[in-house]
């Protein structure tokens, strides 16, 4: 196991170097560096100003020198400054990952809480109205674009809220985008306020997770309940609930656990569309905004961070297989 780990860790080195070169080159090759774009916003900038600024920002140096400088600084934990936000990239990423998790974890939990029971019921009652409703719902969830659904949710729950006339449902009104109310006192009030904002985007985001998890649960459950050992269990006289719980469910959930585990790094990478529609300052929106605004340091930093996450989680997944499944040995 130790030698396997060492080998995997060593393999990561060229991988990370390769990724960093690609990230750097792609962003540097894009036309229009920050100074060129500045020029367009202001007709008074002269040719001398451009030369002076490019020199000040180090943009006049050859690509390989700029790459080495970037890597050297990155190794010391300095990913540079954001051109848009004027703050260190690292602290920006840190903040935004936190914000994204605020949205992703509730969405993920809602999705699981709904998908697993719905998937199971739908498999056990195949071709029943419940199954049709669930199938309709999953197709709806998979095919509806998040930005459209987001706008619709805002429209219904924030703009028209058609149940205004019913006082009992007055609480069913949510903010039309945003992340928190300015000026809310610290402590519990912050969390209550944040929870209010998270409802709509989390529902929208959970729909996509929910749809695919339902599909997985249903199909793997369908497969399992036709197995011989289920028939054997029934023949032994175990109650139907016992058959489902102890024999079917445990086996049916294995593929789902894999899918869920693999989607954990995605939780950190944010959801650009949902975050943009709801004005949620998460990491997905940060990356999109940075690319569009030519904020290279941020774009490079975020991509590097996400690439690192994928590498680390892959390694963790491989290790956990060995831990969970005694048939797998790394020697």
């Amino acid at each position, binding site marked *: 196991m130790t030698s396997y780990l060492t080998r995997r860790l060593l393999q990561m080195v060229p991988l990370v170097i390769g990724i960093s070169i690609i990230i750097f080159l792609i962003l540097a090759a*894009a*036309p*229009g*560096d920050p100074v*060129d*774009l*500045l*020029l*367009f*916003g*202001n*007709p*008074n*900038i*002269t*040719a001398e*100003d*451009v030369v*002076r*600024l490019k020199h*000040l*920002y180090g943009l006049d140096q050859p690509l390989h020198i700029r790459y080495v400088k970037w890597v050297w600084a990155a190794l010391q934990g300095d990913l540079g*400054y954001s*051109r*848009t*936000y*004027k*703050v260190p990239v690292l602290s920006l990423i840190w903040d*935004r990952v936190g914000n994204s998790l605020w949205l992703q974890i509730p969405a993920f939990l809602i999705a699981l809480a709904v998908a697993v029971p719905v998937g199971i019921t739908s498999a056990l009652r195949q*071709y029943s*109205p419940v199954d*049709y*409703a669930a199938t309709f719902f999953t197709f709806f969830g998979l095919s509806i674009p998040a*930005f459209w659904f987001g*706008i619709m949710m805002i*429209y*219904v729950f*924030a*703009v*028209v809220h*058609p*149940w*205004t006339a019913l006082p009992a449902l007055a609480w069913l009104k949510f*903010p*039309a*985008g*945003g992340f*928190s109310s*300015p*000026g809310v006192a610290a402590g519990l009030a912050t969390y209550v306020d944040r929870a209010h904002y998270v409802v709509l985007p989390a529902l929208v985001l959970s729909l996509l997770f929910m749809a695919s998890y339902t599909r997985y649960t249903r199909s793997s459950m369908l497969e399992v309940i036709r197995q011989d050992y289920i028939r054997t269990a029934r023949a032994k006289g175990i109650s139907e609930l016992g058959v489902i719980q102890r024999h079917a469910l445990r086996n049916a959930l294995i593929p789902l656990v894999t899918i869920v585990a693999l989607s954990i790094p995605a939780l950190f990478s944010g959801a650009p569309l949902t975050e*943009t*529609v*709801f*004005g949620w*300052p998460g990491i997905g*929106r*940060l990356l999109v*905004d940075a690319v*569009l605004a*030519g904020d290279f340091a941020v774009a490079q930093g975020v991509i590097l961070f996400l690439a690192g996450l994928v590498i680390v989680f892959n390694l963790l997944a491989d290790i956990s297989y060995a831990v969970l499944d005694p048939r797998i040995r790394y020697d």
Partner: protein
Amino acid sequence: MGSWRWMSLLLATVLVIAMPFASRAGSSSSPAVGPDTVVLFLQQEPSCLNPVADACQMFVAAAVKAMIFCCNNANDAEPVLMTSDWKFLPAMVEKVPSIKDGDWKVNADGSMQVTWKLRKGRTWHDGKPVTAEDYIWAWRVQMHPDFPAADRSISERVENIFAPDSSTVVVKWKKKYEGANRYLSGAGILPKHVTEKLFRANPAKFVEAWGTGVPTIGNGPYILKEWQKGSSMTLEANPAWAVIPGVLPDKPAVRRVVYRFISDTNTIIANVLSGSADGVDETAIPFVQGLELEQRLKSEGRTDIVLKAEPGLVWEHIDMNVDNAHLKDKRVRQALVYAINREELVQQLFQGKQPVSHSFLPDKHYGYNKDVKKYPYDPTRARALLAEAGYTAGPDGVLQNKGQRLSLTFTTTAGNRTREAVQQILQAQWKAVGVEVKIQNQPARAYFGDTLPTRKFELAMYAWVKSPNSTCESELTSDHIPGGGQTGGQNYPGYRNAEVDRLCHATPEELDEGKRAQMLREAQAIWAEDVPSIPLYLRADYTAHKAGLQKWLPTSSQVPVTWNAAQWGWLK
């Protein structure tokens, strides 16, 4: 089939649930939060609020700075305030200097000396007095070689600044400059007592070191209290703010202004409709969505939200690269303008709310030439001009000259729906006179960052943002043509005319506004005859605000609607 029954039941349920959504939204003329607060929605977030840094010069930053610093005109934090009727009033100073009064002296060698008297008793947000040193400091910072200031076009004209006493600033200008009574130095003001140490520690990092969060000490009517990056910003009325009679005569009635940053324009509009937004500034509602919103409000009979769109200073046009084999002939350029029906275009697309433009200056500009050559829609004339230039019909219906087909590429920012609609209309009209136009759009980054500055285009559509005092030096003179390894200069068509060169170089140094206007009118007359660019229309920017919010006065210029936020108030 049982399953069909169930499916139709499901569908019916969905429809029943959806039905109430068609109902109307309620009225929302009351403040979103409370009678002492205004909630504004912005589509972008300012990066920083440092008045000297160019990085902080984006329009949204100006909107916030107009409240934190005093005051906003073309540059931030100059002592003079520009109003919505484009007047310049003395805000931080006792009067605007003038040649007549003798506080603006012009020497025989063309150099100038302007004396500003600061108003007494103005303070920074931390209570320290605003002094002449703060204006001098701002200029020194902007001129420091290690400070990444991009635009020094005004401050470079200043020879030196000194302060005979703490409330007098004397500015020596190297040569004549007409803006010397609007700009103290072109650098605005900086609180020296707060920023000096930070700046001296590392001038290159000063933009990151100050003005990116709380506290950002200003001298304006509002104080920055909270800034949640990516989400919101809260400003509170400055309790020490003293009114300026005749300029900003009232104490701030709105105690708190909250900015919320939402990048999706549909979400912003939803917030306007739901009443969560008290106001939306010039940047947030794209024109076409604004038109739709206006119709919707009208059809629903809603009077609680006021939408305004005044055509202003944003000039949409098509540059023609005069170094192109076809476009170098003036007759071809003129024919291209005659061939298109711009009046119909603005009627069809914008209901006429964005008027056709005929000159490189907007018609509200003091130097606008109303007698400039206008090109009415006249395809016959266009064909005649092209025939005169030697073009004959080719086998495929496209005109040709000595075997060269009159085929041009037409570039603009990809994904901009309005511009793409304009392109399609124009393409069809040009085709009707035998000109083939191929649309080749590019992402904004490549277009503005590479294609335009290197002049790799034939027809290029984009906009310039003018100011009430724009002249023509950087966009029309032949020594401002970029390309050939040189960047800088915005004469993208490559227009060269000796007389226009002379006029455009001379206007900034002409101190008499009447004479300046005359020179600009002459330049427009020559330019309109040569047409290096097709003037299309003047853009109008929508703002929205609740009917109860008083004194919301958009300037339809580069000065944001927040210029008079200290005078806003809710109808009681």
